[in-house]
């Protein structure tokens, strides 16, 4: 009996299949965080990574043999790793071979960390590495918002159920980091009870980590308020795990967590990771079923209202395959797909208000409709794209029967 109960709890906690869309969304933030943290250090390779660079080496984090091996890197190898990082990072960001690119990108991160921890090595960087390690374990984060989703062409990719363990471990990591950060402040050598660290921070000179925010000067002369603030900070950090895991307080805790990190970024010079990764970690606590239920509700509403019609060459395998990819990207179910006659010169889009677009300009409109195409908006509206875009589109359209087509779409069997 007890064994069964335990097994059930374990199943619910880690093994149960739940949609991975939240994790896929999280991947984008992890990629952005890694990029924004690491790439600036590449702008001064001679200062940071080449043989004459100013280096500090983290022997506590890496074994000495590993660091010594990495230190023997010639400058050419450093450049190779820079390009390897750019490539794998971009693939991870767009979700192309998501798991492999995550592993290779993480390997590059380790290389640069071992080469020099002066710029990238911070405690929040270590948190990011733990997150990356968990992301490397599975490919679930590539299920949606990814090129992998388009390659697979699964129109239900956004509700693909996966064992929940990775998201749960990421949740536990976030909650525990909060808890331990609070705990260390009041135990061991932490001095948030015996001292008044917030008060000291407010009195730091301009060279210090405290930003010059509105209340700083006032707080600098109100030690009691600072002490109470410090205690509140510790109490919040230590109670966050409970608030985040109790269903009734979860929503408030997520909002609190978001405000928390925003406040940190506004008041202290803390690394980019605080701005891009930690708020996204809060979103991991939103139940995936709630996200998919919300999407389904939106799809139902859209299905009942007049929708833009996308009209394509129904006899062309390449066109059907392309439309299937549009369907994958059409998260809100906003489009109606209408096969047109053979030999259409271009795809057409008829909006519900009567406006009509064709070819590249139809694609441009799609960028506003499909969430996965949002990042393309700056590209399709870039100056000159109105001239170049139609030319490229027409060339592709003219040669569409020559392009290879996925097996399932080659003989009219690509059902839409």
């Amino acid at each position: 009996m007890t064994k069964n109960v335990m097994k059930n709890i374990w199943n619910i906690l880690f093994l149960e299949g739940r949609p991975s869309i939240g994790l896929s969304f999280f991947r984008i933030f992890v990629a952005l965080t890694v990029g924004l943290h690491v790439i600036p250090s590449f702008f001064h390779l001679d200062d940071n990574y080449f043989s004459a660079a100013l280096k500090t080496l983290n022997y506590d984090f890496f074994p000495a043999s590993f660091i010594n091996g990495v230190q023997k890197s010639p400058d050419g190898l450093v450049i190779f790793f820079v390009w390897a990082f750019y490539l794998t990072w971009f693939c991870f960001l767009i979700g192309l071979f998501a798991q492999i690119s995550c592993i290779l990108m993480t390997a590059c991160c380790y290389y640069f960390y071992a080469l020099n921890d002066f710029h990238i090595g911070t405690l929040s960087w270590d948190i990011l590495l733990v997150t990356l390690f968990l992301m490397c374990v599975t490919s679930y984060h590539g299920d949606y918002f990814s090129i992998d989703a388009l390659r697979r062409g699964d129109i239900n990719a956004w509700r693909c159920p996966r064992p929940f363990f990775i998201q749960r471990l990421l949740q536990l990591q976030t909650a525990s980091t909060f808890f331990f950060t609070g705990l260390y402040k009041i135990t061991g050598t932490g001095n948030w009870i015996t001292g008044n660290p917030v008060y000291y921070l407010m009195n730091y000179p301009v060279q210090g980590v405290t930003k010059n925010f509105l209340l700083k000067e006032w707080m600098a002369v109100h030690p009691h308020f600072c002490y109470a603030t410090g205690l509140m900070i510790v109490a919040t950090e230590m109670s966050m795990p409970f608030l985040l895991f109790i269903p009734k307080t979860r929503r408030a805790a997520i909002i609190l967590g978001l405000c928390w990190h925003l406040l940190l970024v506004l008041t202290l010079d803390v690394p980019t990771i605080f701005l891009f990764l930690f708020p996204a970690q809060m979103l991991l606590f939103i139940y995936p079923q709630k996200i998919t239920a919300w999407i389904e509700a939106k799809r139902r509403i859209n299905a009942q209202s007049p929708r833009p019609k996308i009209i394509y060459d129904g006899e062309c395998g390449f066109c059907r395959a392309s439309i299937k990819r549009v369907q994958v990207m059409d998260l809100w179910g906003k489009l109606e797909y209408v096969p047109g006659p053979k030999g259409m010169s271009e795809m057409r889009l008829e909006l519900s208000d009567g406006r009509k677009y064709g070819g590249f300009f139809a694609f441009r409109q799609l960028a506003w409709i499909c969430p996965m195409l949002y990042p393309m908006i700056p590209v399709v509206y870039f100056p000159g794209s109105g001239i170049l875009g139609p030319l490229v589109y027409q060339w592709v359209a003219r040669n569409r029967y020559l392009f290879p087509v996925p097996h399932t779409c080659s003989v009219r069997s690509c059902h839409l």
Partner: protein
Amino acid sequence: MNIHLRNKLISIFVVLWLAVFYYESTCYYYLQPFFKRELPRMKFLFPPAGWIMFYDLEDNFGYTEVYGVKNGNPQLIDPHQILQTRAIGYDNINRNALVSVLSQGMSDSFCPFLKRKFPYFEKFLVTYVEYPHLTEQPMERTQTVVYTCGE
């Protein structure tokens, strides 16, 4: 993959991960003092001292100032010219990144670095500026030369 095998593998991974995560998170400040000995640690993944963000701040503050000397005249060098890498969203200088050049042995790499970046100067003074009592005596400021480059 067989679903039972998959679940077993996931369960083993979860148990191992949780054990390592909480062991590493508590080892330095709690487990080692409790067992009164140095415990084995896992490299490559966790911060050596746990999640210790802003845990111990005292009523003092210190940072590094570097002076270039030309014809006997010391001239303060903007730290942003020394560390030119700009981070996005924060200032690494304000995070006191430069203070690590005061660590033992850092002069061996920092001095050639300064000479390469600022060939104009004949020598450099690497100093430590300290505000020993931030709240009681905010104007009290000490400055000591930690090492000199180029002598």
